[in-house]
């Protein structure tokens, strides 16, 4: 297999795993104002991701780094063209990160409520904007020989916004299910109820997205040209339905696993549909940045392949171990007793 294709797959995997992991961090935060009733529950929400959120975020840094190393031209064009939305994502992620660490370091209600707001905004904004950014990439961006001709507002088109809403809803359901898996008590029960309320909304938005995608993008062309890719969108739909089934039958762990699969498969559906593009031009395909015209040299890709194939499995092993260490269901009482808790 050509290295470019291998790195395209890896690129997709890095983003998909990032969305699957940081997705529930974002989700619980987006839900926090709606389902936490008091300070103890807000702390429980924060502590449910306390040990793992930082490791989750590194998948984004690695996805960015991999774009740089494997497809430098795409990295350059993507990051400079999407300057303002990326800046907003960056500011939001900075605020989110410090809010998790700093909230517990002060005692006054004003201090806590300020960091709570930072936590919620710092999670909602990236969830929405990553969706908007990927929606616009699926659709194609206005590139020609002179460069990029869009603005922040041209990104806020109906398809981009719909993808943004899809991401927010996917993560919200995912977050609710995470809380049912990682916490116990009133909050976990309420989260299960929230998942029941949100899943139908997510399903409607997902259907709208799938239909709109046929008109706004060329993603489906690949599935017609390469039928062996068809299982990806089929699995996306099937896992979303499975998540719904398990939500309503009360099998929350299975629902969470199905939700993980949904996010992976939705991301893969988009990425596989892009092939061979990384950044399609909406003006003319000849201006598109593809994995072939924007990649690093075979030498660099060989080095990076060796690094990735050796170390990514190791990363997965120790991250999985850390999830196992923190796999028990925690309650507000546990948090109250634990002086290291956030």
């Amino acid at each position, binding site marked *: 297999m050509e290295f470019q294709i291998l790195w395209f797959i890896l690129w997709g995997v890095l983003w998909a795993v990032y969305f699957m992991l940081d997705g529930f961090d974002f989700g619980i935060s987006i839900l926090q104002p709606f389902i936490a009733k008091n300070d103890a529950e807000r702390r429980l929400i924060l502590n449910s991701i306390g040990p793992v959120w930082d490791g989750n975020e590194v998948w984004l840094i*690695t996805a960015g780094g991999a774009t*740089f190393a494997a497809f430098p031209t795409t990295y350059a064009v993507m990051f400079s063209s999407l300057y303002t939305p990326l*800046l907003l994502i960056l*500011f939001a992620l900075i605020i989110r990160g410090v809010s998790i660490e700093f909230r517990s*370091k002060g005692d006054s209600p004003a201090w806590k409520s300020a960091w709570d707001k930072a936590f919620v905004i710092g999670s909602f904004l990236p969830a929405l904007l990553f969706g908007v950014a990927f929606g616009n990439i699926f659709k194609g961006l206005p590139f020609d020989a002179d460069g990029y001709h869009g603005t922040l507002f041209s990104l806020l088109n109906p398809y981009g916004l719909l993808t943004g809403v899809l991401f927010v809803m996917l993560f919200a359901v995912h977050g609710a299910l995470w809380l049912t898996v990682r916490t116990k008590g009133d909050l976990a029960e309420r989260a299960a109820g929230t998942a029941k309320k949100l899943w139908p909304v997510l399903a409607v938005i997902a259907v709208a997205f799938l239909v709109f995608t046929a008109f706004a993008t060329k993603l489906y062309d690949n599935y017609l040209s390469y039928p062996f890719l068809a299982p990806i969108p089929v699995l996306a739909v099937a896992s979303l339905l499975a998540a719904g089934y398990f939500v309503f039958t009360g099998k929350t762990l299975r629902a969470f696993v199905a939700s993980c699969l949904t996010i992976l498969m939705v991301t893969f559906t988009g990425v596989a549909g892009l092939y061979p593009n990384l950044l399609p031009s909406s003006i003319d395909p000849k201006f598109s940045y593809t994995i072939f015209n924007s990649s690093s040299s075979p030498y660099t890709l060989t080095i990076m392949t060796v*690094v990735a194939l050796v170390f990514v499995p190791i990363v997965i092993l120790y991250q999985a171990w850390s999830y196992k260490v923190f796999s028990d269901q925690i309650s507000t009482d546990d948090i109250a007793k634990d002086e290291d808790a956030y």
Partner: protein
Amino acid sequence: MDVLALSRLQFAVTAMFHFIFVPLTLGLSWLVAFMEWRYVRTGDVQYLRMTKFWGKLFLINFALGVVTGIAMEFQFGMNWAEYSRYVGDIFGAPLAIEATLAFFLESTFIGVWIFGWNRISKRLHAVSITIVAFATNLSALWILFANGWQQHPVGYVLKNGRAEMVDFMALLTNPNGISKFLHTTVSGYVIAAFFVMGISAWHILKKSELPVFKKSFRYAAVFGLAATLAVALTGDMEGVNVSKTQPAKLAAMEAHWETQKSAPITLFAVPDPDNERNLVEFVKLPYLLSLMGYHDPNAEVKGLKAFPREDRPPVTPVFASFRLMVGLGSLFILIAAIAVFLSWKERIESSPLFLKLMVLMIPLPYIAAWLGWMVAEIGRQPWIVYGLLRTSEGVSKNVDLAQVIGSLAGFTVLYGALAAVDIYLIVKFAKKGPDANTDSIVKMTRA
């Protein structure tokens, strides 16, 4: 100011802000790991309280280091797209490897360490912070390989309209990368040592928790003395590499205009770049510049005039920063030596003046590290990759002035606020001292 100037200013602001937190992490992680291993070995609760006290300060600092790091990775693409496109084939690799090898380790095990007190064995818990220390230093290695390549590009060919990597080993054995890594990490250890000594000194002055803070002070003093000496040694390596590979930077560091053999060092001068001379010069030390650059008193040192004007870095800031950095570095060796001596002779409690001085010293190693980066990066100008690509050629073409003004304003406001909160929290928890109630901690670490 144009997009180029503002993008440079933004990179400087965000990098220097990031570099408040990173160097403390590099050194304090080892110290906290050492304290925790003492606890594991001896079972003495005092060490556990030390670990938790310094660990809390470590975590407040660590959080800001992590989040401000993402801004650095994003900015290469956002503001320096032409640079990223031109050198990404070789410059992107160490960044991606840094994330894969170091950031995952660091971020996963810091979570295990914070929340794992009563979930994993004592030994595994101490292993976790040791892994964090190792991983943060490993991340410094990879990012400084990347920076070393900007200082002295190696292992590439110009092909397909860009620099392409042809020799990965050349990147890993680049002397500029290796000396940058060593000099930067040990300067981080100095920052950590003076941080711990300064806060300990404050508590010793207040006679609070004397056993904990006298011990902390002693560890930091020994660590600090070793680190300050290592800074001098690695600084010498840097000097030799700079003279070999960046002669214009060396000349700017010394405001050295005329090419000459047996070149002296001028301790004080007021450079006058317009007229290619120094207005005032005091105290010339003969042979020293030749000795510093080439380890040979008779070696020829190129003067700034040997380079076309457009290839010279700004002289005054590089010259002044270098002098201040070396002056501070020498002061740190002296102070650390006194600290070790007083600590060893058990006279630290009875030296209140010295303790007060140690509290005031806390910011100085940070300033020295900043000055070092100013020498390295202003001295690299006008190149973004030395001799290969000019900084002006690296900036993004499709970013407009309003966007960069907006982002720079945003960073300034956000980082200003975060700096205020961080200092407030560090001071608050530093003053508070270790938790009084040891029973609850011991119970928690029953495993």
